[in-house]
């Protein structure tokens, strides 16, 4: 696909133009952490396109933490009347997260209309990573720290600006609507992008050498389910589900109903398999009544269920779960310990 070069002033102009008629979100640092922030035409905002992913996973834009999914009695079908949004600066781990959730929400025989509609309308602009955090481990899962797929446009910071790569027609249309005539990227700029990519990749690989396993994570979870290695983490895990809330592939929810005036609303809210009531059924029985069962369940879902069902692991190596964990549990170390105990 075509590659262009944009100077910072051109980027700003495009962002302002897009923000006129649709919501545009970019990563911006606040209080030491990077968050998705909405671009408004009146405020100066400098999207941070280098570095790593934001705190929030991309799923928050498509699969909201809490929203009304139906009002009844009603005869009208679902209509999504919200404008499509632009996400500017999504990292590869987040793009992969969208692909994982597409399998659940968009590719089955029953689809989530909210997810499907928002995915169709949204334009996603990926961005290369640099200066990986110690928690980044995408390369352990065979992913690269730069956009590989599922982006409409991708950008990479180089000297004096960014290289812009078009991924889809939707992306091409968005760039054209930006009102800036972009020059083609030079060979030097493309070479610089490639050098940066390989450098970041080696950094991620290097910092994860100590976590490399001989067996795949999938094999370890399948064969190591009864391993004693899990036990030392079970007592430490606070079951606060912080790791699940920030995970780009966790998608569990629960539905409840409420009366609003003479109407009834059905509300969908995120739910977490680490909470004790998650598997509780009539009569009070829980299928995963012990902390041990619940702790391992996350790994089973991501490294056993997803490969069996969708031929992919539901982990993107974004490292949010490690960063969010109050008990300092590192998924990479857990799996490494499982392997060690199995080979001992």
């Amino acid at each position, binding site marked *: 696909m075509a590659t262009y070069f944009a100077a910072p002033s051109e980027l700003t102009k495009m962002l302002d133009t897009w923000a006129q008629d649709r919501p545009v979100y970019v990563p911006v640092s606040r209080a030491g952490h990077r968050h998705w922030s909405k671009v408004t035409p009146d405020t100066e905002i400098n999207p941070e396109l280098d570095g790593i992913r934001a705190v929030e996973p991309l799923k928050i834009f498509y699969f909201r933490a809490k929203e009304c999914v*139906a009002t*009844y*009695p*009603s005869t009208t*079908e679902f209509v999504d009347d919200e404008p499509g949004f632009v996400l500017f600066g999504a990292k590869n781990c987040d793009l992969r997260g969208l692909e994982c959730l597409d399998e*659940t*929400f968009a590719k*089955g025989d*029953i689809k*989530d209309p909210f997810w499907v509609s928002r995915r169709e309308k949204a334009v996603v602009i990926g961005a290369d990573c640099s200066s990986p955090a110690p928690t980044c481990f995408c390369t352990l899962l065979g992913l690269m720290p730069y956009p590989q797929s599922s982006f409409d446009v991708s950008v990479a910071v180089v000297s004096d600006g960014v290289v812009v790569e078009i991924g889809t027609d939707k992306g091409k249309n968005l760039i054209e609507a930006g009102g800036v005539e972009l020059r083609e990227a030079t060979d030097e700029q493309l070479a610089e992008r490639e050098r940066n990519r390989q450098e970041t990749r080696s950094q991620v690989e290097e910092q994860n050498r100590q976590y490399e396993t001989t067996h795949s994570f999938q094999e370890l979870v399948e064969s190591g*389910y009864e391993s004693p290695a899990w036990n030392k983490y079970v007592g430490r895990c606070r079951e606060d589900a912080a790791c699940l809330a920030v995970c780009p592939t966790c*998608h*569990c*929810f*629960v*539905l*409840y*109903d*409420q*009366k609003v005036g003479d109407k*009834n609303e059905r509300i969908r809210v995120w*739910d977490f*398999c680490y909470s004790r009531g*998650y*598997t*509780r*059924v*009539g*009569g*009070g*029985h829980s*299928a*995963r*009544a012990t902390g041990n*069962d619940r702790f391992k*369940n996350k790994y*089973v*879902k991501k490294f*056993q*269920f997803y490969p*069996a*069902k969708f031929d992919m692991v539901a982990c993107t190596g974004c490292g949010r779960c490690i960063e969010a964990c109050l008990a300092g549990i590192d998924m990479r170390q857990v799996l490494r310990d499982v392997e060690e105990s199995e080979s001992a």
Partner: protein
Amino acid sequence: MPIEAEILDIVDENSAIKTYVLKPKEPLVFKPGHFVMVGMPGVGESPFGVSSSCFEKDKFAISVQIQPRGKNTTALHTAKPGDTALVRGPFGNSYPMDYYKGREVYVVGGGVGMAPMRSVLLALLHESDQYKSIVLRYGARNPELRMYKDLCLSWETDKRIDAVYTVDVADESWQHNVGVVTSIMKPEDIKDVQNAVAVACGPPIMLRFMVPLLLKMGFKPEHMYFSMEKNMSCGMGLCGHCRIGTYYVCKDGPVFTYDQIRDFPDAWS
């Protein structure tokens, strides 16, 4: 979107369970084993196995056990005939009744797990000449907590079915067996076990004790069909709640054969 259903009739099964006959605005086409989401408007919804015959086209029945602090089951238990409930479904797979034809069918029900078994039994009896034999072993905690008492009574004298009942704890009125349901399962119940099928629904503890017994009787793992109860919220394979191992109970189940799920701990705990 849920559809409205009129509550035609409510039958008290025992102090905790009522059976509801519902007539949805659009007919529900279901097979034995299917489950539905039923709730009261503005309160919520819960999954229930259909307990009526699939040959009744315009209405269906579910049995609801009231749950302490259960908003929806409490609302259902206070509903009256003529009230409107909401229904979604049917969901999931069903028992392969055609595969059972020409075979001995060994049905085991435990407690409220008798609800989907009632649907299976009514379908079996509807075409009883198609099956080699129909056997029922039903256990409940005590005589009061048994479900479908009149139907069970009629089966005692029904030549088409070999029905034996037990309770864990008896009272002076009880004329049948005393003990858990596995105590009334005998190898001589089935003649050609290699070709027979077992169909069961009950609490996990019953399934755990029953599985070794069925295997000892000679049932093949792929001929042991269990209806698994899990905490379904969406019924469509989206919400994640009902997963056991590599399956969603709401889409891949609720009916599983033993060889499908034997290696997944959360199926048995």
